């Protein structure tokens, strides 16, 4: 596990230190009219922009769910359900996972920017993030089992419906993030990881974290 990465050239250090050639690198010529707002010296690698686009659309989807929940809460048949306590534990697990990933990201980042000539066991932190992420999904499954044992199913009442739908869709997104993390680990081990891929995965992961906190508050609140 104590992987030490020390082969700088193979890691694509992103495009922040030197202007890289090739696609997407639109070092614009001086425009004719002198003022062009979007002219930049370089374009970021697509993943860095793409991830914000992805997060925007996921955020929009959950906003739609939120509005549905708010509207539905106004109906008379809304019964508030007590959240299974395991959720709070899961929250800690997910935050810890985010933390682990951030540690890994910073270490690799420092290495890529040549601030450190070698980086101490970034994969260990990545594996930890991966493991904690899986633990979170397992914990969510535990929460569903707890609800089931109370006789609360998807269609029992609107609150349980929303609980299952929101947690399940969030868990699906987390699983997607786990796939991304696994891909990062794979690419790191092969020394073909790009900084932009790592950053994008990390942002996604942190976003899942924040989204989960948001959902937790939303489900916990008695509006």
């Amino acid at each position: 596990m104590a992987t030490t990465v020390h082969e700088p050239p193979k890691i694509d250090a992103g495009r922040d230190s030197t202007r890289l050639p090739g696609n997407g690198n639109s070092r614009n010529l001086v425009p004719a009219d002198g003022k062009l707002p979007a002219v930049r010296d370089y374009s970021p690698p697509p993943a860095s922009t793409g991830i914000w686009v992805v997060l925007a659309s996921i955020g929009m989807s959950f906003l739609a769910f939120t509005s549905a929940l708010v509207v539905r809460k106004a109906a008379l048949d809304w019964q508030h359900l007590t959240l299974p306590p395991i959720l709070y534990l899961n929250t800690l697990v997910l935050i810890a996972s985010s933390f682990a990933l951030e540690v890994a990201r910073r270490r690799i980042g420092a290495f890529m920017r040549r601030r450190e000539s070698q980086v101490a066991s970034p994969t260990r932190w990545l594996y930890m993030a991966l493991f904690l992420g899986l633990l979170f999904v397992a914990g969510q499954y535990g929460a569903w089992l707890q609800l089931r044992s109370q006789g609360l199913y998807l269609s029992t009442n609107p609150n349980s419906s929303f609980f299952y739908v929101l947690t399940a869709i969030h868990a699906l997104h987390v699983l997607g993030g786990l796939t991304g993390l696994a891909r990062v680990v794979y690419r790191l081990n092969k020394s073909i990881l790009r900084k932009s891929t790592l950053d994008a995965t990390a942002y996604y992961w942190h976003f899942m974290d924040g989204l989960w906190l948001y959902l937790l508050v939303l489900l916990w609140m008695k509006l």
Partner: protein
Amino acid sequence: MHDASAHNQVAHHAPPTSFIRKHVFSLDHKVIGKQYYGLALVAVLVGMALSWLMRIHLGWTNFAIPGLHLLSKNGAPGNVMTPEFYLQLMTMHATIMVFFVLTTAPFAAFGNYFLPIQVGAEDMPFPHFNMMSFWVTFVAFLVLVSSFFVGQGPTLGGWTQYAPLSALGEVTGPGQGSGVVLWAISIAMFCVGQLLGSLNFITTTLDMRTRGMSLWRLPLSSWSWFITSCMGLTAFAVLMPACILLILDHVAGTSFFAPGGSVINDQVQPHSGGSTLLWQHLFWFFGHPEVYIAIVPGMGIVSHVLVTNMRKPMLSHRVLVYSFGALAVLSYMVYGHHMFVSGMNPVSSLAFSFPTLIITIPSTVIVLIWLGSLYGAKLRINAASLFSLGFISMFIAGGVSGFFLAQPSTDIMLHATYFVVGHFHMVMGVAAMFGIFAGTYFWFPKMFGRMMNETLGRIHFWFSFVGAYAIFMPFHYLGMAGNVRRYQAFTPDYMQPLVPLHQFITIAALVTGVAQLVFLYNLFHSRFWGKPASDNPWQATSLEWSTPTTPPPHNNFGDKLPEVYHDPYQYGVESSLGDYVMQASPEQVKTVHDEA
């Protein structure tokens, strides 16, 4: 990789060699664009055939259409259309047209093919997502069409799928069980496909521009695809959750949209407390931007085609772009006008009415810029420019009827009548189709290396233009007379005197429809036997005309990406080429017109 001398080198992936990688699961945006175009072509033929069946039925209710019973197990006993089959055809016609034609053709098809080329990129940044985007959409189409052959047929709930008609299941009518579920699955998948597409479009525009290609140097078509993808990102992200909740109401017994205490066939339905207005809000929050998702790429394409054929730039490139953007932003604030009589708070109706009226301002600006740009132009008449001008005429005609529907007080009389049907068919149906046609006649030489037949193109235009007016103008009259939409027949009532007008429309629709076969023939014939096209047959300026070969090579620009030196539409100048200079040409030229 760190070698600066490799600047502008393009050597990412070698062209694929196997048939499957080349034509089926291709990562090449151009192939994906053509695949989208093919899908739209199949979809539009299906959609048009469905509309023929409906039109014949509306004109001559008891007419037995030979072979109709083959389409549906129960829908046409003795080839006479039943009410449920009519509604099923109508729902499928609308769903196919709105999603699989008007969204895919101008946006996903042309956008995929030309956006990366117009910004000077060798491909989209996420080719695998791009491929998935098409195949998910394709499967979504298959799922939708499969509902014709499953259970009691497709859903009859209309493309808006209002709850609780859509949420209560088979009790509300044939196809409302498995039909609705398949519909919702299909649309949810479609959303996924378009979200992936939008992701690519946005990142392409922001990150993949070549040297010198600032945002303001993007051609109008690229701008329209970019703005549309921003709309798509938010709109489809809202429709997908709505579809998921709808599916759950069917298969899991939840009550998101299904209200309590519904009594159908004397049985109290086992749901409680669902909100039917919630569906309408979620749907129209998607639905109104969807109208602009269908029309804004058309506007961009038409502007692009028109500029080339006017041989002069638009009065203002930026004002047009700002207007597209204003349409996009306002489109989210006006969706409530679909719900004026839906039991929404009447104060909200009023509040939605004003942005709806205000959205006419950017639309008017766009039309006036087009008209003003025509002044003093050296207009070339060809099939592409005819369809572009036809687009403007149609957009005006369909647009002014929006005045009536924007106001709750006049909407009382016209809501859910043929007036609405006429309005949106003109403005987002026919106009968007004209945009697609203009794009096809214009870009076909680039896409296939052959010219389309100009004479056939003009014949196609004349029938389509006159035909579209003959079909859809009378819809407005029908609406004024109170003819309610989604009626499969007119029982002895005040609508029966309108039947002759319906018969006239039916005949016009059949003639216009047959004229589309001319286009189809032209498309296929020219694909294989058309006159070979030069690299820049229209003397156009944007980057798609600077590719080293026609059609462009796998990586679009060969081994060197172009550099951009000019605004996109340098027409009416003095240059070595004549009256235009290409974006990628370093030649400095003197503008001859620009004193304003």
